[in-house]
């Protein structure tokens, strides 16, 4: 089983490097190998899940036991995200095949591999490596659309995340210099003595900001609108939907295992609040679908950060719920945006041309603004109950901002909805009205079906999430799982 | 040429003594409560303020001024009537509620007076509407006006002041004179003929060539009766 788990990282990696070679020999193999790999990955995880997966397990790579060796840590949370990676990789797979789409495909596989790694890796340095891999893949994909604007955006992104990586590395270095280990479990043990000080905090903040670049953390998220607006929607969906969540996952793990200090939480809270304000407000005036979605996802991520900032893991459930919800909704919305890109005014009256698309848009928007009984409502409900429970005024401020942001969100989302259902302007001819069609519409409706399913099965889903959250919160479990030898304190 | 003399005064054909008493009471009240609409043309109007105010005080006779023809009993023409004015006078007269009385003050209403040569003045008022009473003079003093009014009151009480019926009975004659003055297409908003039918005052003099001429061009002015039809040609867009 452990080998299988390694496979879900290794296979896409392998595929990524072999694909260009393969396609020289045979198109067909090249065409199908990628999806095959991903399906296999999904199957492995599903199989693992279904075969009574209760206790988290740690997989040592290369036979060295942690903390010396590197390991994968697999708990239900990690598994969930790994599965999401494989699945979305499949869903957003660039299905055509020619010279440059082959490059896209291999980059996609690379991205999947790296993301899975991010989800599973139990080791700070590995995390960093996978993170870099993912970044590289992303650059490639982002610039793949080939337009000038895309290159400019990518360049910005490149510089930004480059500096981000440097910061991250700096933070990791600090930690290493302090503790001499990079294994998370080990760090979790050492943290209380060695890292709960200003130096540790510096390290964490450096990492936070570095990784925050991918997690769309304010203010290092300035690349987001440009990239999402210019890159292919499928990539944007993947980035907004998944990669940001994985970065979140890392930060979350660090916060839970190592740096559960009030200051850290406070910084995250402040940045989160700023993220919400800036994102939602900016989206309010967005005149273009993709840009609007980009801004709103900044806002959503900000909300998740607020949730994350809740002291000693109270917000875990909220983070989980919000992330998954945003993952589904945003991917769906981006799928719609694939055909509805460009100025919003162009969309006037396109509900007639593509009723299903319009209905899906309304559905996603309703869930996004948290209309009961759609899942978005429950996610937000969990968050605000937790926020209101805090005495710290900053949290109540967070609550207020969150509520106001929701109002703004509703107003701009439904302005678009009204545009969709409005009567088309006289000057635009009917054929000019863009229609949602083909694969993207199918994908979007898949997500829509998912939303409705969750809404119907909300009770079991909620319980499941609670279980996952509980497991992820359990630090001792993590430690004991990774290094059974070491019990509790330091060596 | 219908002057007041030739019209037989119609007696209320009632035998019930109580009804007689009642009719008498009604006539009395009519005579003791007269609302004047003074159509102040010409110079005679100047004599009315003293007649109304503290010097002579019409109100002690139950006479008071009114503003709209619907409320009034007496139409007081206080001077010369130009043709333009006459149209309004006739309109006003027809809008008044019968029993109604017309009093012409000053010699201008009798025979044009000093406007005898004027091409634009109607000389004889009683060619166009039945006049109950002329108060001649240029101008008659308030005493004369009061005296005239008292005379009218007596006529009303005795029931002779019924010249308003003459307008319906000989409408053709009056209309003829009016048409001579105002032209063929002359028409007032009031449908006198149907009113004559309403008061069963329709007589041989009511209809004639002139009324026929009128009916040729008369725009239909029958009242808008309430309608409960539920079928409309087609609802509004």
């Amino acid at each position, binding site marked *: 089983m452990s080998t299988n788990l390694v496979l879900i990282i290794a296979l896409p990696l392998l595929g990524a490097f072999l694909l260009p070679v393969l396609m020289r020999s045979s198109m067909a193999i090249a065409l199908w190998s990628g999806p095959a790999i991903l399906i296999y990955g999904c199957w492995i995880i599903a199989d693992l899940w279904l075969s009574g997966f209760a206790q988290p397990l740690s997989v040592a790579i290369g036979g060295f036991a942690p903390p010396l060796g590197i390991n994968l840590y697999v708990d239900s949370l990690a598994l969930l995200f790994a599965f999401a990676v494989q699945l979305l990789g499949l869903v957003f797979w660039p299905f055509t095949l020619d010279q440059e789409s082959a490059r896209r495909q291999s980059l996609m596989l690379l991205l999947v591999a790296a993301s899975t790694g991010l989800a599973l890796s139990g080791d700070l340095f590995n995390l960093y490596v996978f993170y870099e891999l993912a970044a590289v893949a992303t650059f490639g994909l982002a610039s793949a659309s080939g337009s000038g604007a895309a290159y400019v955006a990518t360049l*910005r992104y490149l*510089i*930004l995340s480059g500096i981000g990586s440097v*910061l991250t590395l700096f933070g990791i270095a600090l930690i290493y210099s302090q503790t001499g280990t990079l294994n998370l479990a080990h760090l979790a043990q050492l943290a209380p003595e060695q890292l709960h000080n*200003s130096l540790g905090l*510096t390290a964490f*903040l*450096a990492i936070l*900001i570095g990784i925050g670049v991918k997690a769309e953390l304010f*203010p*290092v998220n*300035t690349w987001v609108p440009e990239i999402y607006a210019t890159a292919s929607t499928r990539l944007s969906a993947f980035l907004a939907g998944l990669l940001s969540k994985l970065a979140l996952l890392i930060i979350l793990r660090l916060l839970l295992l190592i740096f559960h200090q009030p*200051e850290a939480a406070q910084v995250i809270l402040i940045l989160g609040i700023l993220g919400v304000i*800036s994102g939602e*407000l*900016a*989206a*309010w*005036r967005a005149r273009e679908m993709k840009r609007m979605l980009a801004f709103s996802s900044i806002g959503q991520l900000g909300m998740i950060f607020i949730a994350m900032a809740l002291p000693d893991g109270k917000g875990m*459930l909220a983070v989980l719920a919000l992330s998954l919800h945003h993952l589904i909704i945003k991917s769906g919305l981006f799928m719609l945006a694939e055909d509805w890109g460009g100025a919003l005014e162009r969309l006037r009256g396109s509900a007639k041309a593509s009723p299903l698309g319009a209905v899906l848009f309304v559905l996603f928007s309703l869930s996004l*603004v948290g*209309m*009961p*009984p759609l899942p978005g409502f*429950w996610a937000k409900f969990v968050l*605000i*109950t937790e926020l*209101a429970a805090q005495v710290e005024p900053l949290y109540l401020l967070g*609550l207020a901002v969150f*509520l106001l942001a*929701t109002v703004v969100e*509703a*107003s701009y989302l*439904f302005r678009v909805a*009204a545009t969709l*259902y*409005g009567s088309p302007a006289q000057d635009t001819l009917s054929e000019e009205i863009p229609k949602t069609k083909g694969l993207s519409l199918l994908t979007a409706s898949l997500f829509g079906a998912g939303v409705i399913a969750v809404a119907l099965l909300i*009770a079991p889903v*909620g319980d499941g999430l609670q279980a996952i959250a509980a497991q992820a919160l359990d630090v001792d479990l993590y430690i004991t799982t990774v290094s059974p030898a070491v019990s509790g304190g330091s060596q | 040429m219908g002057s007041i003399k030739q019209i037989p005064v119609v007696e209320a054909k009632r035998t019930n003594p109580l009804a007689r008493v009642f009719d008498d009471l009604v006539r009395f009240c009519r005579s003791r409560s007269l609302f004047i609409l003074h159509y102040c043309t010409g110079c005679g109007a100047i004599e009315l303020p003293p007649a109304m105010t503290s010097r002579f005080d019409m109100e002690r006779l139950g006479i008071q001024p009114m503003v*709209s023809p619907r409320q009034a009993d007496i139409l007081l023409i206080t001077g010369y009537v130009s043709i333009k004015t006459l*149209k*309004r006078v006739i309109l*006003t007269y027809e*809008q008044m509620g019968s029993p109604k009385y017309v009093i012409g003050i000053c010699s201008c209403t009798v025979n044009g007076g000093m406007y005898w040569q004027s091409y634009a003045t109607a000389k004889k008022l009683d060619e166009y509407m039945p006049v109950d009473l002329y108060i001649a003079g240029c101008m008659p003093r308030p005493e004369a006006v009061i005296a005239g009014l008292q005379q009218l009151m007596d006529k009303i009480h005795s029931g002779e002041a019924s010249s308003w019926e003459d307008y319906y009975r000989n409408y053709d004659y009056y209309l003829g004179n009016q048409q001579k003055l105002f032209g063929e297409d002359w028409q*007032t*908003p009031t449908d006198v003929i149907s*009113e004559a039918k*309403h008061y069963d005052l329709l007589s041989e003099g009511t209809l004639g060539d002139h009324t026929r001429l009128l009916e040729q061009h008369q725009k239909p*002015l*029958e*009242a*808008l009766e309430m*309608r409960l039809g*539920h*079928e*409309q*040609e087609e*609802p*509004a*867009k």
Partner: protein
Amino acid sequence: MMLTLLDELLLFSGATLLVALFIGRGLAAGWMVTILYGGQLLALLKMAVLGYEGGTIASSLTLEVMGQALSWRFDALSWFFALITIGSALLSSWFSCGAWERSYIRQGGNIWLFHTAMALNVFTMLILLASGDLLSLFIGWELVSWAGFLLMALAGGVAARAAMRYITYAMAGGMAIFGGLALIYTASGSLQLEAVTTAVEQMSGAKLWLLVILFGGGFGVKMGLMPFHLWQAPAYAETPGPGSAFLGAISSRMGLFAILLVLVKLFGIVKIESLKVPFTLIDARDLLAWIAVFTIILPTFTAMKQNDARHLLAWHGIGQGGYMLLGVVVADAMGGAGGLLHVFNHATYQAALFMAVTAVIYRTGTSDLNKLGGLVVRMPLSFVVLLIGIIGLAGLPPMNGFVSKWLVYRSLLNQGMPLLFLAAVIGTLGTILSVYKLIHNIFLGQLRVEHEHVSEAPWSMMIPMLILSAIIFITGLMPGIPLEWIASVLQTVGLPVPDYTLGGVESSSGSLDMIWVIGVLFAGFGVGALVFYSAGRSKRVHQLDNYAGGHFLSADVRYQYSDNFYAGLMHLIGGWYRGSFLWLERGITSLVEFLSLGMQGLYRRANAEFYLLTTALFVIAWVVI
């Protein structure tokens, strides 16, 4: 499992929605939906015991999500509101069947969407009314908001803009409630009503204040209370005819229902009265009362300036809401009864009025008060309906509006609140003025040439209107009928109950017996008629045979007074209309515009890495220091 009566009702309502959804395209659909509403009414009447004895009927559907228990049940309060909801839905949908439907389709309207939206509204409202805890209340609340949005927006164009405005307000309100919910949850650890009541018992003043503001504001938005009233008039007025009748009758009363449930039942007027406004003599209750009073006066006088019949009525709808809140917050026996009775009465006459105006639009194609006139000779029945409606709206005897307003006045008198009393009466006077303008400009005065051939509205529209008029008069004659339901509602929400009779209210300090009052009134009319008709027979004349100072009238020149109807009044108070709230709204909007511009500018900067470094340095500095 065993279905309770409530389940039956909800299932019936859901079925109605499905029918509208799936076979709502045919012309017969309207009738089918109407019949189903009738079925809902029957299902509701099977629960009549609630209205007469009180008690609760629970739904067998309960839910447990993330540790939150959700339950639904009906009590006297819900039953009373549900009765109004389904009743108005039934009559509005009946009104919409047949002739109106056809003309609506001919004008390119989407009748399927209309029926669906109506059914959805009713369904969601029932869910809201059935809410058994605060969470289900909030869920129902949001559902109702969005359903309302659908009904308001479906006409497109102006209506859609109005609906957008509405949804922004509604979201703001919803979020306020959401926040309040969270606060309560932290205080009580649960959203079950009992737990909340106990939690509110030992709650500090400041926190309670916050809650009252959040909930009051949130629910107030739907009621159109000051200063959240701007959205309502255009939104209701632009909805297609029967829809506006339905919305005007009940939709915004959901706010009152929620206020009754949360502020009155859970918090308790006494608790609210204990909240003092700092540095003043008034407390939270007075504050609510004054908000209610301003909600009465300002919209009423705004209505007076409207030149479109539907807008005029919609503005009055806002104003009348004030009386209900006023009665409820005065909260003595008569006040509570008056407020609740006014909910019922308002529903009846507002629906009737909107229907009558819609009938006029159906025949003449306009509701512009300056383009109508003299229609009484062509649409006499509609005139009668409108007349009965406006007498009710103005709160004059013999219609039902008088009784509820009388009760409110009496409560203010008993409580010794002269200024509130005065303000309430000013509202009524203003209403009288503007409703006379309404009926005069539509039905009285000179009939236009182009309306010579107009005829009375078809029976399919006429019958519901007549039924409503009958209800208005009968409940005015015998207010005891609704008062019996209201008595049990008052018990449910814990307010004192007046001792009512069939004809009105008994009280040591002056009672009311409408049966006598109306009796002598009509006897008086009888005598008057005797005096009048004993005199000579009338002669009908044409409208052009009319006094014009000796001028000859003709049909091509309008001889009618309709524009700037209360010129003299406007000379004085015209300058007092400042549109301050509009200004406020615009101010907020442009503020958001401005901020969002700034934020976009932030993201449009090219030197992103600069931010990154500065943040990094800043936080590190923050740590080290």
